């Protein structure tokens, strides 16, 4: 009973999300373009699928995965688990947090693979590039970037180093890569930064960040708890461009060695 209540709540808030888009599209279609909708029937079914699908997806996450993930994040960052004693810790030892780094990386990777926005963009990219960019290739590359980014982000919270140094260094790498990366991948790489952090990743990652900032001695949740999401959107840009650069380089090398063989 309570559960049906939960689902209808999620369904309602999903409808509220979709409502402005439906109004906007209807107004433009009828008043500006003055055309009937093409394939209206199919369109309505599609939108209904999207709303119900997203509501079930969110309700399921809320029911099954978020509570577990959140409990885990707080248990793993608990000083009793980390240091193995109940004494009050005053000195932070960043090497003691091995499991936290591993958890951050793995949960970052896993949630990114399940992120619906990324699935949508990977689908479009695969379609537009006529298959040269594989959906799974893109998703795994982005997920690896998120894994590394969130892991580094937890390291930052534990050591208490300022956020902007990491972000500025990351930007610098992105700028340098942009100069050398193949032009066709650049826009897609920038986009993959923005899509990684929505429905699935944000709730789990934010709990991990705020939990760490609350339990690590000397950290302030207001100052140190934020910023993990920024890491998660920066590093996929680097890995996607890096992957494209690597592919370009290996193709280049292959053709070169072929030329050599031909010359012989």
């Amino acid at each position, binding site marked *: 009973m309570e559960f049906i209540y939960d689902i209808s709540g999620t369904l309602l808030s999903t409808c509220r999300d979709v409502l402005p888009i439906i109004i906007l599209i209807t107004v433009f279609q009828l008043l500006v373009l003055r055309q009937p909708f093409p394939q209206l029937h199919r369109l309505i079914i599609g939108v209904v699928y999207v709303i*119900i699908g997203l509501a079930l997806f969110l309700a*399921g996450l809320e029911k099954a995965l978020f509570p*577990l993930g959140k409990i885990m994040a707080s248990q793993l960052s608990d000083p009793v688990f980390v240091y193995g004693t109940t004494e009050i810790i005053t000195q932070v030892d960043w090497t003691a947090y091995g499991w936290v780094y591993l958890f951050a990386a793995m949960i970052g990777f896993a949630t990114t693979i399940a992120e619906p926005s990324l699935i949508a963009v990977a689908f479009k990219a695969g379609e537009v590039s006529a298959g040269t960019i594989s959906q799974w290739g893109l998703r795994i590359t982005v997920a690896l970037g998120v894994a590394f980014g969130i892991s580094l982000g937890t390291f930052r919270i534990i050591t208490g180093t300022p956020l902007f140094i990491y972000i500025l260094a990351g930007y610098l790498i992105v700028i340098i890569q942009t100069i050398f990366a193949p032009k066709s991948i650049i826009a897609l790489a920038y986009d993959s930064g923005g899509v990684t952090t*929505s429905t699935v990743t944000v709730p789990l990652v934010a709990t991990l960040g705020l939990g760490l900032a609350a339990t690590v001695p000397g950290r302030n949740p207001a100052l140190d708890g934020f910023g993990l999401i920024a890491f998660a959107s920066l590093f996929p840009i680097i890995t996607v461009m890096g992957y494209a650069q690597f592919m370009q380089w290996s193709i280049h090398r292959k053709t070169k060695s072929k030329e050599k063989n031909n010359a012989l």
Partner: protein
Amino acid sequence: MIIFIILKKIRSAFTDLLPIILVISFFQIVVLKQPLPQMGEVLFGALLVVVGLSLFIQGLEMGLFPIGEAMAHALARKGSVFWLLLFAFALGFSTTVAEPALIAVAAEAAEIAGQGGLIESTPASLKEYAFGLRMSVAFSVGLAILIGVMRIIRGWPVHYLIIGGYVVVMLMTIIAPKEIIGIAYDAGGVTTSTITVPLVAALGVGLASTIRGRSPLVDGFGLIAFASLLPMIFVMGYGLIVFK
């Protein structure tokens, strides 16, 4: 035949979800050495997630992608830059202003600013601060999609705009009050919701494939990148004005 298609969708949704299940079980059983609590509820939730994800993706292919592209084609054929830009701005603004994640983040940011003594800690001033934050983020997302569409029409290279944006972010980080920086950086991530992204992607790709001389791959993407970059600048700017 239809059952076969449905099964295929569900199988691929299950594959998408498998990593999360593996990670959580591994940490629960091997590292924390605890049994999974409420096994039945967890399994039922996971089932909902799989069914939900399959439906969502089916709906994308049937509804959101086609309408996004059809709108892009129709507006491009109409040849009116004004309506196209207005549509772009309205799409960004309207989907962001009511975004639950943004409302939550803005309220939290107001709380923190109130505790830090940066603004008066009265409910009215907290509310005003949160509202201002939401408006500046929503306006910046609208503007971002508008600039992105402008870029597709004109064919400007995406990297000049993005790198220019990064430079502004870096400069503003130096002068902005440090309490707003973490929130500003995160604001970029929360703006692009699961329903906005497919529509915006379809709009960009649709426009780039309609306008002559544009390539869908090179020019069609990049809108989401603008939508995550501009809010950072606007939130830091908002912090500069409000905190003084």
